[in-house]
């Protein structure tokens, strides 16, 4: 997640209040943040909201970015925290979703049934476990990197991965394909 000189220039300009430079940063990292948010929520609309929240929070926190980590790592951590917080808010907000009949999108995918089951299984994990799986399996972070992103110990990440895998195997036991029935 190394920053280019060009990107560092955008970061510095954004820190002086240049929205156009910040727009370029958004453009560069929007797909990564959307993907993370989608993995965490299973919803395109929620992912869009979370991505917006993440970038807006980043804008307001830019003064605190000192460059010790790369900008992409920094904003990724903001997104992870937002996603974890989203889950707790969403749980309390279920009645609102029912009352206003907010529609959760179906999961468009080539192999839709299996993909849907997998996504639903992910959503049944504890949010911290899900975040750990998303970071390590989908985004390819090692346990040390995931621990930094999640703000916890590496051993905690390892334990969460272990327990999440155990639960996923049970949840996906009936899913055709490898891994589920093992």
């Amino acid at each position: 997640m190394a920053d280019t000189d060009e990107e560092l220039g955008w970061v510095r300009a954004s820190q002086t209040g240049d929205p156009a430079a910040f727009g370029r940063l958004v453009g560069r990292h929007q797909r990564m943040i959307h993907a993370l948010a989608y993995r965490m929520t299973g919803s395109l609309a929620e992912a869009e909201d979370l991505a917006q929240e993440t970038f807006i929070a980043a804008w307001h926190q830019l003064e605190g970015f000192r460059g010790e980590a790369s900008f992409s790592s920094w904003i990724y951590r903001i997104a992870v925290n937002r996603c974890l917080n989203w889950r707790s808010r969403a749980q309390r907000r279920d009645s609102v979703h029912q009352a206003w009949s907010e529609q959760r999108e179906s999961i468009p995918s080539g192999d839709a049934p299996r993909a849907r089951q997998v996504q639903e299984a992910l959503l049944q994990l504890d949010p911290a476990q899900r975040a750990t799986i998303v970071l390590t399996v989908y985004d390819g972070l090692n346990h040390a990197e995931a621990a930094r992103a999640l703000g916890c110990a590496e051993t905690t990440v390892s334990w969460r991965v272990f327990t999440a895998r155990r639960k996923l195997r049970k949840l996906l036991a009936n899913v055709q394909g490898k891994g589920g029935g093992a």
Partner: protein
Amino acid sequence: MSHRDDELNELLRTTCVPDRTPGYWEEFPLTVLRQLHRPVSPPVDASSSQRLWAWGLGLATACLVLGFFAGFRRGHAVGFSAADVAQSRKIYQEVAALFPDRVQTVLLNGRGSQLVLASDAQRPASAPLLVQICHAGDCRRFITFSGQRVALNGETFEVLSDAEGNVLVVGERLAWSSGEPRKAAAGYHIRATALGEAL
């Protein structure tokens, strides 16, 4: 990593993130920029920041309850007149100046105002929201933010705002939206409005 782990990973990766249209990716940065109402403040040097924080924490500990004569009184007949909103803005501005980015809720009642402060400075999740909840003759009025919780008669409500500017009040027995203010709310009478992004 065991073989079983590899197989599980393979199965997990069968879920692809749905792609968006090129137009979406072009528009998204602009959507974000349109929501950046507040300018970035210049960096504060660490020592003055720590002094401010320590000063604020001391004040917060000593002055959990501050008296602000706001002119509000209890009663379910109280509405949000322009004067009410203006007064609430004034109160919020005074409190926010004392505790920047740490105000979570200001409870307004007939005896003054009670503050709920965060232990650390954190940008609020929304513009300040003015919320009044009345039930069985008892009314409480709050200035708070999306995601915060308020209480009346032992019942807790979460206040939320959505992208359309509606204020939602969610409790165990009700879910009320300023977008549908007349919707039945289990005997509760609720009013809510955003106090404005410019605060």
